[in-house]
């Protein structure tokens, strides 16, 4: 018997449609989600690379010789160099200023763009050129400080350079947040002529690379192995942890959503496969009667399954691409990627794994069981292929669900919580259904004719209804769970990044200027956040061990620290105690910084600030939420432990886009200030939240579709039996209206019980999810226990009626003939 011949006939009979649809839906859901998140990540990382001005950056404290690194570069990479150093510049009119000079090579920046203005505090414009050799661009505040204007010259070391532009921001300026001196942008080629950079000069050198991922990875390996400790690598993940973490969390959530969708599709598959198996039992019995062996049947159905799988895979992948293209189109305004990104292969692999697991766990068992079906069915029509759920079926289905959840989320606690919740639903669902449908319904007073019909129908279908309660309960649990997690996730993100989160930081504020600065903002209806004192010191000793040099883990380190008497917001104490009034000069250190520097609780640290030596005792270790977008410090010192002289202040405030022009006045009023505009990063984080929220809504829609598929599958499973029963009841005088009301009653009861179960199990599962995804505790929502069962009862009775109305309307004579 030809496989294609068999498939064509099965296809015509319509038996395979639901199987292919549910499989394709599962594949489309996970592949689509993976494709969307992968491409979103690629796009956002692409966008974020502008904060580095490159894809990968190698930091060094010396100029790296071009003849060394150029030999280690892989093909296809773009390269640029920058060199930043502090120096004095002198104008022709005798004005002096300490500046932060940044020399850049011709291709800088590789990602992002420079912003300039025509007048010192004028309108910002994107600029894709650089100063010519022999020219410099100055930061606005240098113009009044030096008393120069465009076209004048300044002396920098031995050379004289012409002022040809005004530099307002560079894409990678965030990396030198505390580099408070005003910027002078010049060409790398001019460094030699200035004679300012000697072998021992303190400089910050960066080698910027951009290009294909593989070439970057190879080059990174070569450069790291060649330069060892002399270079530090920075990628977007390392330099923008807030963006990287937001993306990571978004992907985890979307995949959790995807796994819920697959679980629902899995339930639909299980039910469709069982129906397929039951219907084909008669076929197989005839085939066996006609001489077909088990192997032949197995080969036939395995082949059929392979064709089904290929169809589902093709449809699923096409749908996934469609989903991703639609989502990208909807979000095109949010993600203004300049270059399009490739289609990664991984999502299709995820879809393939999903397909294989779904077939092995949900569909395969029913098909395999057909091979062992008894041919005696041709004589005894009452024989069924499935007498309830066999332990091996349950084990395979649950095993498949768990494998997929673990595969998507890589989180055992989450997987365990889902297992627990599903087990509760299964055990409690079957117990409760048995109790309600067999005992309670029978024990209730008989009342009206409709109720008698409904209760009799519930008792007759007690087993099928129990199965439906478990299936719908699982579907409802998964949907409630996802809805709750989605709301919590978005709320948490929005709380973390409220609309008025500080989006501008100010450094280099002098002690005497703090009050005037705050008044300046208040007068313009801008709310200043708390100002933090900040000082820069060098760690020179740990316990009585002196640190020498600037290389290796045991090196001296320059650190910014602040002092405060209370634990700052977005900080959590991990070990030790917060500052006590005991005369001991205390210090609190951020945990990762402590690990990197080999600092432990109780260590005595020696810092040098200018000519002073400061001794401090580590009395606590802190965890800092770097995503909080608030001023945070690695080292916080007890007030009074360090003389306050020599410190500057750090402050922050929220400035809407429309008031940006205020910055000009601010810098004019406080010329020594450096303003860091992080509104771009915040905007990007908010865009991720918006993009992901929309994606989650799209995924939820797919999940509701999967849920409805489960409902319809469950209800139509008993349709033939119901049609026959209703026909018989009609023959004996039952009215169609009474039968219809009976259907509504029965399915409302199933929906209500499934809703209660679903909420209960969702509450269990969500505990695990809160533990792992939100690091918080979950307090139950009482209104869910009222609304979900009610909505579920209405939904179920409606779907029940839509599916069964035909069985009520059918003329009894037709049904009896059909039977």
């Amino acid at each position, binding site marked *: 018997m030809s496989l294609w011949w068999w498939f064509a*006939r099965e296809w015509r*009979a319509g038996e395979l449609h639901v199987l292919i649809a549910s499989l394709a839906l599962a594949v489309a859901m996970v592949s689509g989600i993976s494709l969307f998140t992968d491409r979103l990540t690629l796009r956002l990382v692409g966008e974020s690379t502008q904060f580095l001005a490159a894809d990968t950056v190698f930091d060094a404290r010396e100029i790296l010789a071009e003849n060394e690194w150029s030999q280690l570069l892989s093909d296809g990479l773009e390269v640029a160099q920058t060199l930043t150093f502090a120096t004095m510049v002198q104008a022709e009119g005798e004005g002096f200023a300490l500046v932060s000079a940044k020399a850049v090579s011709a291709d800088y920046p590789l990602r992002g763009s420079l912003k300039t203005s025509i007048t010192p505090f004028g309108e910002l414009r994107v600029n894709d050129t650089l100063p010519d050799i022999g020219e410099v661009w100055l930061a606005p505040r240098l113009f009044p400080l030096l008393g120069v204007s465009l076209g004048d010259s300044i002396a920098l070391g031995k050379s004289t350079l012409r002022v040809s532009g005004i530099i307002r921001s560079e894409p990678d300026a965030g990396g030198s947040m505390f580099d408070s001196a005003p910027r002078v942008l010049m060409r790398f080629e001019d460094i030699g002529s200035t004679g300012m950079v000697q072998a021992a000069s303190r400089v910050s050198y960066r080698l910027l690379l951009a290009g294909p991922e593989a070439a970057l990875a190879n080059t990174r390996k070569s450069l790291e192995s060649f330069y060892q400790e002399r270079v530090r690598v920075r990628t977007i993940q390392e330099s923008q942890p807030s963006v990287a973490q937001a993306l990571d969390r978004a992907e985890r959530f979307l995949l959790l959503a995807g796994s819920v969708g697959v679980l629902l599709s899995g339930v639909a598959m299980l039910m469709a496969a069982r129906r397929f198996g039951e219907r084909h039992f008669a076929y197989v019995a005839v085939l066996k*009667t*006609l*001489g077909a*062996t088990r192997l032949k049947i197995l080969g036939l159905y395995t082949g059929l399954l392979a064709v089904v799988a290929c169809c589902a895979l093709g449809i699923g992948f096409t749908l996934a691409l469609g989903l991703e293209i639609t989502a990208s189109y909807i979000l095109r305004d949010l993600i203004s990627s300049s270059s399009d990104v490739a289609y990664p292969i991984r999502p299709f692999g995820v879809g393939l794994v999903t397909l294989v697991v779904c077939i092995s766990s949900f569909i395969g068992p029913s098909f395999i069981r057909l091979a062992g079906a008894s041919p*005696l069915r*041709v*004589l005894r029509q009452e024989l069924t292929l499935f007498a309830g759920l066999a332990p091996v079926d349950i084990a395979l289905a649950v095993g498949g669900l768990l494998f997929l959840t673990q595969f998507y989320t890589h989180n055992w606690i989450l997987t365990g919580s889902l297992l627990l919740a599903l087990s509760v639903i299964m055990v409690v669902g079957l117990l409760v259904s048995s109790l309600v449908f067999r005992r309670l319904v029978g024990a209730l007073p008989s009342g009206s004719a409709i109720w008698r019909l409904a209760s009799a129908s519930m008792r007759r279908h007690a087993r099928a209804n129990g199965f439906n309660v478990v299936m719908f309960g699982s579907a409802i649990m998964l949907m409630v769970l996802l809805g709750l997690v989605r709301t919590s996730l978005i709320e948490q993100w929005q709380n973390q990044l409220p609309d008025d989160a500080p989006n501008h930081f100010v450094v280099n504020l002098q002690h005497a200027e703090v009050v005037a600065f705050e008044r300046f903002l208040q007068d313009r209806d801008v709310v200043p956040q708390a100002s933090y004192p900040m000082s820069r010191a060098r760690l020179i000793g740990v316990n009585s061990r002196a640190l020498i040099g600037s290389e290796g883990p045991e090196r001296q380190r320059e650190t910014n620290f602040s002092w405060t008497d209370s634990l700052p917001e977005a900080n959590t104490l991990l070990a030790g105690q917060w500052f006590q009034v005991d005369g001991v000069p205390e210090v609190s250190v951020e945990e990762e910084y402590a690990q990197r520097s080999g600092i432990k609780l109780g260590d005595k640290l020696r810092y040098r600030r200018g000519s002073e030596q400061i001794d401090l005792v580590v009395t606590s270790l802190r965890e800092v939420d770097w995503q909080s977008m608030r001023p945070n410090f690695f080292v916080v010192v007890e007030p009074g432990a360090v003389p306050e002289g020599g410190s500057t202040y750090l402050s922050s405030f929220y400035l809407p886009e429309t008031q940006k022009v205020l910055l000009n006045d601010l810098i004019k009023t406080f010329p020594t200030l450096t303003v860091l505009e992080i509104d771009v990063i915040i905007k990007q984080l908010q865009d991720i939240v918006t993009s992901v929220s929309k994606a989650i809504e799209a995924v939820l829609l797919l999940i509701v579709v999967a849920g409805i598929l489960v409902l319809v599958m469950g209800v139509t499973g008993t349709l033939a039996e119901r049609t026959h029963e209703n026909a018989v009841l009609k023959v004996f005088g039952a009215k169609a209206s009474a039968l219809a009301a009976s259907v509504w009653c029965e399915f409302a009861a199933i929906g209500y019980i499934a809703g209660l179960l679903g909420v209960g199990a969702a509450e269990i599962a969500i505990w695990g999810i809160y533990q792992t995804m939100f690091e918080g505790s979950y307090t139950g929502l009482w209104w869910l226990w009222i609304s979900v069962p009610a909505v579920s009862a209405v939904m179920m009775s409606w779907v029940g009626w839509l599916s069964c109305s035909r069985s009520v309307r059918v003329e009894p004579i037709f049904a009896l003939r059909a039977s």
Partner: protein
Amino acid sequence: MLIAAKLFKTVALGDQTISILKGIDLEIKPGESIAILGTSGSGKSTLLGLLAGLDTPTCGSVSHANFVVSQADEDARANWRGQEVGFIFQSFQLLPSLTALDNVALPAQIAGHSAAEAQAFAIRQLQQVGLEERLYHFPKQLSGGEQQRVAIARAFVTHPNILFADEPTGNLDEATGGHIADLLFSMTESQGKTLVLVTHDPVLAGRCHRVVRIRNGLLEDVA
């Protein structure tokens, strides 16, 4: 020769064990037609299932030529059925997704013939039962009598030696049932097949060479 020796069949029904067949001995010669009569629930279909190798006895044996049907595994019995046995059922048991032609060709394809060969055999059989105009109709487009004629064509397509018929006219009206019975007996006799007919209709049973009745799990000869 098809031989049943000391056949017992018991089934468990909850806590109870019910004996359906209690030691049946039966020998059916090649070319013989035999009717098994009995009331509903007497066990006649159970006996047919055991004789045709669709089920295995609790005790005793069924053998045909040198093949011990009751001791063979399921696949060996399937092979034996494919080569030696044809079936006609009360409820026709046609596959609804297949046309009349495909239904009839199915046993030949299972037996290893190519699709073209099987279709050629099937067309010949359908012509014999007078359905050459209905080759491409699906079962639901055929009347009950026509469906049973398709089933007869299917039973003969592989030229089996034994035909098992379970109430072949049970779902048909008297006139149609009569035509079907005529067709069945004429084809069986003209081709020298062994016919095992299970029925509760004494008139139909009377057309067989031999009639036995099953009562209380045992067989008794009917004159």
